């Protein structure tokens, strides 16, 4: 049985962004990922790296611009985007 999507996302975050002291299970699914002093405190270079990793791992295409900012707000928003992208449009 494979891990849940949020668990997989957290593993990608830790591996791809070289967060040696961060255990994936300690990342809060709803906490903000980016911004100084907030949540994980990731920056714009992390955002780019994470976008490439998520696209590769989950086979999705992340749009550019403001839309991507809302997708990358938290682990849960990324997971929701992945679910949405995988569900065929009605």
């Amino acid at each position, binding site marked *: 049985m494979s891990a849940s999507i949020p668990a997989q996302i957290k593993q990608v975050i830790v591996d*791809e962004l070289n967060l*040696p002291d961060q255990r994936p299970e300690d990342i809060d699914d709803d906490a903000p990922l980016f911004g100084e002093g907030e949540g994980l405190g990731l920056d714009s*270079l992390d955002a*780019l*790296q994470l976008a*490439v990793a998520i*696209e*590769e791992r989950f086979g999705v295409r992340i749009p550019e611009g403001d839309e991507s900012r809302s997708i990358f707000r938290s682990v849960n928003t990324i997971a929701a985007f992945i679910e949405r992208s995988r569900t065929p449009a009605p």
Partner: protein
Amino acid sequence: MRIWVTGVGIVSPLAPTARATMDRVCQGTHAFRRVTLFDPDGQRCQIAAEVPDLRVQDVAPRNQGHEWSRTDALAVTAAREALREARIVPSHGCVDLVVGTTTGATFETEELLPGLLLPDSPTPLSRAIVHPLSLTVEHVASALGPFRRRRLVSSACSTGANALLLAAAWLRGGLSSCVLAGASDSLCRLTFTGFNALGSLDPSPCRPFDASRAGLGLGEGAAFLVLEREDHARNRGAHPIAELVGWAAGAEAHHITNPEPDGVVATRTMRRALDVAGLGPDDVDYVNAHGTATPLNDPMEVRAIRQALGSAFDRVLVSSTKGQLGHSLGAAGAVEAALTALAIEQQRVPPTAGLTTPAADCQAHHVLGSSRPTPLRAALSNSFGFGGLDGVIVLARPDFAPDRETVQKTVWVHGGATALHDGVHDIHNDRWPSSHGTTGPLPDDLTTGLDPARARRLGRAERILAAVVGAVHPLDDERTTGIVAGKPSGNPDATSRFLDRVRLRGPRFASPADFPNLMLSSLAGHVSIYQRLQGLALATSSTEQAGTASLLTACELVASGIPDRIFAAAVDPWGMVAEANPTQHTEAAAALLLDATPGIARLVFIDPDSLPTCPGPSTSSKVLQVGDSNVLEGTPWRDVHVTRAEDVLGPSAALGVAAVVLATAWVAAGADRVLVLLSSEEGGAIVSVDAP
């Protein structure tokens, strides 16, 4: 003494010579078109400014075309033009050479890559993927030399500015009377894919400072300047194009790709460059801006120019020639300084191509459309590189700035450390290994003291060097500290991983975070960020003697009156090159803190030819030898026992710095003088490490 620019050469996407490039730049023409050097399919941006009709085999000596890179050919073409204009033939005098590059032979290495990855490839990957940047220096020297002193400088997008800064330091410090200095970078898949991955490239021709700007446009090219002491130039009847009057460098110590938004160090670097020139904001008429057209650079730079120039800001013209030529990365600082020299000669300011509506946060006295004729007295040329490596050059009409004296400061060691297999040794350590230099990688626990969160973007070389620099001593006063970081090559391991991934998965999956770490200068960038060093920061390279190149460069900069303390630092990291030949290789790193104020030991460079007439040794004097030079015969030092540095410290390219760390430790322990015999690109050098 004054420093005249007596020759300029430029190869650009718009024209093959300096003055033709200036004419096209002044017309506001841009050179962007779909990339033809390689296939840009699948990339978000597919345009760049390429130098047309460049055939490497036409520039390289007969039968050597296959060993030359596009970067080499660009460099030699521009350097030849500069020498021709200055009417200098290097073999007839003592001309020195500084070459800057960041991409070197990367384009050619990429051509080899698919073949190299086949399982039965005849060439080991580790051999060919290494693109020693110092090869470009050797090719310029072999085509146009001989040159006396020669050095490679790399500091990402401020490389060209720092090449000129080092040449200026040699001239101001009395080491040189004439220097050919410049920089060259060819386009390659690595930088094109990397900047695309970072989302930094505008799919349309770039528009610096414009409200609609959407990123930079890559270019390529080379520029060289002949810089000469006024008396030297006058004696041979040469005329000045402009005068090089000011220079400064600084590190933002902020982020590996993003500029510090308040422009604090950029401002300070412009002010320092004006201080060196003896000029103030009211003397400046033009700023040739870095002006990349990225969302982050342009407002930071306009803010910094405003802060540096104060009330003169509204009057001073500002333009970025990257709108015409694109961003030629390492070459840009040299190209733009050469164009600024021509702007002063021709008394006209080039426009910023692509700029029609300046953004609200980029308001300045911009030049739109075509060039503006105007009286130009002094002008700044700004360059800001990845890792926050800033460089500023000031050029002026001849005789406008005050005349300056030659500066020859004594260089002192204030601290030092080197990493060996049993840990980091500083100069107060009295337990050095006696004669068992060990080969192999350094132990992993060497870097466990680093803050894991802050060190997470550092590669192996950067981590080791950050730990060694951190071991020297806490830097707690107001003086700024800089770093010259030497390494045998770029980052072959990470570069091959990056390119291999692009080849297998496509450019869309290139790693944005890995890309900035592939540049040689990320060593200086990352260590300055981690250790918060805000002085001058640049990298140098030499396959065998990176440590010696770093030591010489740092000493020359301190001696010429650069206002920072400077670490001479070097690292020879373990990796696939070492693994291919493990018994010949020791992973090593060393850092030596140098300053012009009295410290633990004084460094004096001795010309090997003058050694026979030098004072002889005392009973406490020692000799430490790096390499195989045998210069003591026939001198008063012939009977002193010679310790081979390699036996104590292991064989590595960082030995030049590590040996002086050891020599200083011997002085701290009671030796009155230690002669360190170095071998360098230019031949032998001797540094005498003296007790105060």
